[in-house]
């Protein structure tokens, strides 16, 4: 059965075809960042000039810096609030407003970005009229990104919290920990890996977002995706390809390195468990 279906020629071709589909745009982006011609998508020769151009492009560089700052702050807020939300939903059992909290945490996952952007903008405008602040800028984009991020972080952290053996927390309490110490000394270290994943995920979400930023940005808060988006609307720009290539290389190295690290750590762990077991038998 397995051999008939899983490792057939058909199976292999399907896998390869879909992977080509997934990777061809990325490869094109990279290849054309080295293409000499500006106007045409025809290959005319190899060049680094778009990288030089991009490095002198104030708009792109400023956008990059803003986006990195924003993503860092958004990921931090998301992980903090995501941890609170997940902890309350997993550990606090029944309480008044549980259903409300669940739906509020889930809503941004299913709401289109356009809706999140519009609704937040309308609220900020109303607030501004009423209180005189906040001005639209990085801060207001941050609110939008941190909202989306909180929801995604909550999902990641909830699934880890559910895995943790409750007896570990009981054991800590039994050995003299007050509830806050239990969280700080046992729960937090155990969900640390999920916090890191949530941080990376929410960082990426913020670094990638165009729509919410478009609604909530103000003067001086043009993020990198906003710059790219406004240029992409007009047509093709090889400087964007250069920036894209840098981003792709950095991200790929990061992702591949971390998966290799995880794979190794997991293998080492399995070996140690097997060793300990064998030793216990003898």
């Amino acid at each position: 059965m397995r051999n008939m279906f899983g490792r057939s020629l058909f199976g292999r071709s399907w896998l390869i075809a879909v992977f080509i589909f997934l990777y061809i745009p990325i490869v094109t982006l990279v290849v054309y960042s080295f293409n000499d011609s500006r106007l045409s998508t025809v290959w005319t020769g190899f060049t680094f000039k778009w990288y030089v151009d991009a490095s002198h492009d104030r708009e792109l560089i400023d956008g990059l810096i803003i986006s990195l700052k924003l993503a860092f702050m958004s990921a931090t807020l998301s992980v903090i609030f995501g941890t609170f939300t997940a902890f309350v939903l997993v550990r606090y059992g029944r309480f008044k407003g549980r259903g409300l909290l669940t739906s509020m945490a889930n809503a941004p996952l299913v709401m289109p970005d356009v809706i999140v952007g519009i609704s937040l903008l309308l609220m900020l405008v109303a607030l501004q009229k009423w209180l005189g602040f906040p001005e639209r800028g990085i801060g207001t984009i941050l609110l939008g990104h941190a909202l989306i991020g909180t929801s995604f972080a909550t999902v990641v952290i909830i699934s880890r919290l559910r895995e943790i053996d409750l007896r570990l927390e009981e054991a800590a309490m039994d050995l003299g920990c007050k509830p806050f110490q239990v969280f700080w000394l046992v729960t937090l270290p155990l969900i640390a890996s999920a916090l890191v994943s949530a941080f990376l995920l929410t960082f990426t979400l913020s670094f990638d977002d165009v729509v919410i930023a478009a609604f909530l940005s103000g003067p001086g808060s043009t993020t990198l995706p906003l710059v790219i988006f406004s240029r992409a609307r007009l047509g093709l720009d090889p400087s964007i390809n250069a920036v894209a290539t840098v981003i792709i290389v950095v991200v790929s190295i990061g992702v591949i390195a971390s998966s290799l690290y995880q794979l190794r750590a997991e293998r080492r762990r399995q070996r140690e468990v097997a060793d300990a077991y064998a030793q216990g038998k003898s």
Partner: protein
Amino acid sequence: MASVTATTDREVLLKIDGVSKIFDGVVKAVDNVSLSVKKGEIFALVGSSGCGKSTLLRMLAGFETPTSGRIYLSGQDITDLTPYERPVNMMFQSYALFPHLNVWDNVAFGLRRDGLKGAELAERVDAMLSLVQLSKYGKRKPHQLSGGQQQRVALARSLAKRPTLLLLDEPLGALDKKLRETTQLELVNIIEQVGVTCVLVTHDQEEAMTMASHIAVMDEGYFLQVGTPDEIYETPNSRFVAGFVGNVNIFEGKVDEDEPDHITVICPECTHYVGHGITGTSGMRVAVALRPEKIQLSSVQPNKNHNWCAGEVVEIAYLGPHTTYHLKLKTGMVLKVQQPNLTRKMADDLTWGDHVFAHWTRDAMVVLTE
């Protein structure tokens, strides 16, 4: 319900007074239980899963609050104390060792919460590790240890704070059968060495009998019987206890003669002449419990009027030290008989289809009125 009768005059350490636990307003997990445990005793709560033993243990640890009743430790009411305020420590089922801490830090965890530091801390932790013979393993993480070693770390961790009361939740449940037997004795040795009073929860009656000085058999939130292991085994007070602890044959019958020093019970299979009196009347319906190892087999008909019956061998299970036979009696009842293998297995031993006579003495059985 029942409480332990004083066997020694040691002081009572733990007193459970009419404790009940009702979940969600309806589910009675523990139902009006009272119990005293003396200092230095190892006390076992046995029962099948869902009988309330774990809930009772969790109330002793402070993870659950009783719906009613009080718990006293060394005379002090601890019912409303949180787990971290009680001088009680627990060794958890499947150990609950902190996976992010090494062995040393696991053992040091509780001591650090008491503010111990430096040389004093090191001394206490090292002493604990050497007690459980894991001095060399301090730097290892829990997953780098075998099941038996993990169990000893868990024990060291729960003993490190020198608790007044040690709770053991299925202490050997995660070990395989062979390891369990040696570990049982090891565990008892360490506990006795430290001299800590101990309440142990297990579903394994053999484990309870080997380790504990007193046992409470629980079912549906009640204590069915509380006593020493031999009391529970030799004089069970109900069909449930007799069946739960070890193997048993139950004959249903009616009391015929009712004298202070003996009674006779007439059953469809045979007439029992029992060498002890009961609190009951003649004509009362009772059950006679007879352990398989207290029955003997012979090929000739016994020369007495009671305490024997004839049957056909329908099943033989050779277990090495002894063999278990199933005899089918004329009423259709199957009688389990266990025979020690005093000699090596012989060709002329009993085999399937053989007709034999089973007989036993007047002191072999116990009459159950419940």
